[in-house]
């Protein structure tokens, strides 16, 4: 059997006396969009923070492509191919699309000591990427992020993750505060990302958005995974809601290890 892309085993995370994650097993396969659901305080955000290197885990192990990893910072996670996109926080609004895409990895033109950015190359790649991610409007790559809509900003962040070959793109509430059309846009960006070989973890309060795009649903409650193999094609939204709130423990393919 192929190694899963991400395998998290018996993850525990405590903040003082509060246990945010209580022995979580979680995995993401290659080319898969996983929907992570759970009420406020269920432990979704903490799990994502651990996986993105933002907070250290108390105990447990994370494997990427079968290899154990040890994240001390978000840069470690990015280097391992895990990119987390928080709404709005990942981009510099004053900088252009192209400058944001290449921030920290700007290509150099001419002699090294002149340290000159290759802005033509950056703009060219940015233009291609925007098309690839599915932005149909003609937005020049020199446009500052500040004048883009929320959905377009998500698209730029997703495009950046795709370009720099992140195997796993984590989207935390990507459809919050977005209109209907914008939401559909973001969902299609996510599908495009999967179709070009990336995996995603999709976290959203709106279960309907999750159902439209994911291959598999994982539900967390009180620091534990209570269902990890729900198929959105064969399960109803209402049934998943019952799992989230604790009305029902076994719905769909829950606990089908």
């Amino acid at each position, binding site marked *: 059997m192929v190694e899963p892309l991400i395998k998290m085993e018996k993850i525990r995370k405590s903040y003082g006396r509060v246990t945010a994650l209580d022995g979580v097993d979680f995995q993401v396969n290659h080319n898969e969009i996983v929907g992570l659901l759970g009420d406020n305080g269920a432990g979704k955000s903490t799990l994502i923070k651990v996986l993105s290197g933002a907070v250290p885990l108390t105990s447990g192990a994370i494997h990427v492509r079968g290899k154990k990893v040890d994240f001390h910072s*978000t*840069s470690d996670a*990015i280097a391992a191919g895990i990119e987390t996109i928080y709404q709005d*926080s*990942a*981009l*510099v*609004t*004053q*900088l252009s699309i192209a*400058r944001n895409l*290449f*921030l*920290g*990895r*700007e290509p*150099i033109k001419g002699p090294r000591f*002149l*340290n*000159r*950015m290759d*802005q033509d190359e950056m703009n060219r790649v940015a233009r291609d990427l925007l098309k690839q991610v599915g932005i149909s*409007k*003609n*937005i*020049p790559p020199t*446009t*500052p992020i*500040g*004048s883009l809509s929320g959905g377009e900003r998500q698209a730029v962040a997703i495009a950046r993750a795709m370009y720099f070959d992140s195997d796993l793109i984590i989207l935390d509430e990507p459809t919050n505060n977005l209109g209907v059309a914008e939401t559909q846009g973001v969902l299609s960006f996510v599908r495009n990302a999967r179709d070009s070989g990336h995996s995603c973890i999709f976290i959203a309060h709106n279960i309907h958005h999750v159902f439209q795009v994911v291959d598999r649903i994982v539900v967390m409650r009180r620091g534990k995974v209570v269902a990890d193999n729900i198929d959105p094609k064969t399960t109803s939204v209402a049934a998943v809601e019952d799992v989230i709130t604790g009305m029902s423990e076994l719905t769909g393919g829950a606990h089908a290890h």
Partner: protein
Amino acid sequence: MEHRSLIQRLVAKPEFGPFVLLVVEVAVFWSINPDFLSPLNISNTLAFTVELGLIALAMTLLMTSGEFDLSVGSLFGFSPVLMWTLFNAGVVSLPLAFVVALIVAAIIGYVNGWFVTRLKIPSFLVTLGMLLVVRGTALFVTDGFPQRTWKADGNWLATILVGDFYVGPFRIYASLFWFIAAVIILGYLLTKTRTGNWIQAAGGNPGAARARGVQVDRVKVGLFMLSSTMAALAGIISSIRTSAANPNSGTGYELEVIAMVVIGGTALTGGRGTIIGTVLGILILRIMRNGIVLIGVPGLAYNIFIGAIILGMMALHSWLERRHQAGT
């Protein structure tokens, strides 16, 4: 986004407002008193303008990265005092004293940066403290008296820094070329290089920049060092030109420099900076100071005009920013 005409794009640039103001200013002063554009007045105005300008250029980069430096005025006074004290005591040659003064300034900048980035103390408080420490040191070591500087005449270092010559009727100081060089180098650094991208990102969204592996703290410390060193250089140039090293000189310059930078369109909160705008801001304030005296307005009224310009330009920049963000 629809295609915008050349004029619309020009107007949307942050440098446009300051440019118009500068042109109006020059036109008004010149029409009231034609002596305003006389070679003598231009030469005199330019000599000190470029000295303050050197500090404003470095401050532009620092402010773009989201920090600012209130200690520059005190370094402007302290560094020449240090250089002349070392030289007059016969300990070292003038060039060596010059190098030592710049290194000490760079260390002071490093300390500023260390407090801001490591201890997470706002730059306002750190550099305010440093202002007092540096100014206090300058006053203490000199007992408040100016240092002798007359041995500088004919020294090659003095000639390189601020030697003067005539181009037609204009008296030009070498410091003008240092200023122009700084404009070109720092303008290139901010707009064309990777470092420039990091400076803007550090000020715009430090969290996002860090997540992309940008060494935000290192960028900021480097810019604090640049700011202190340029303030020291400006102070030394000024002291050689005026043959005076007064421990009190430079008092209040920090606020004038910050005013120059923000008038030019650099954001006080960081993320957006323009060297061209700062050059315009420098000229606007210095020409204002010179012009209102020439047209007979009492010099004591100077601050009223400066304050009005700052408020007016801030209102303009904020209006342009909101229009721009709205995508119009």
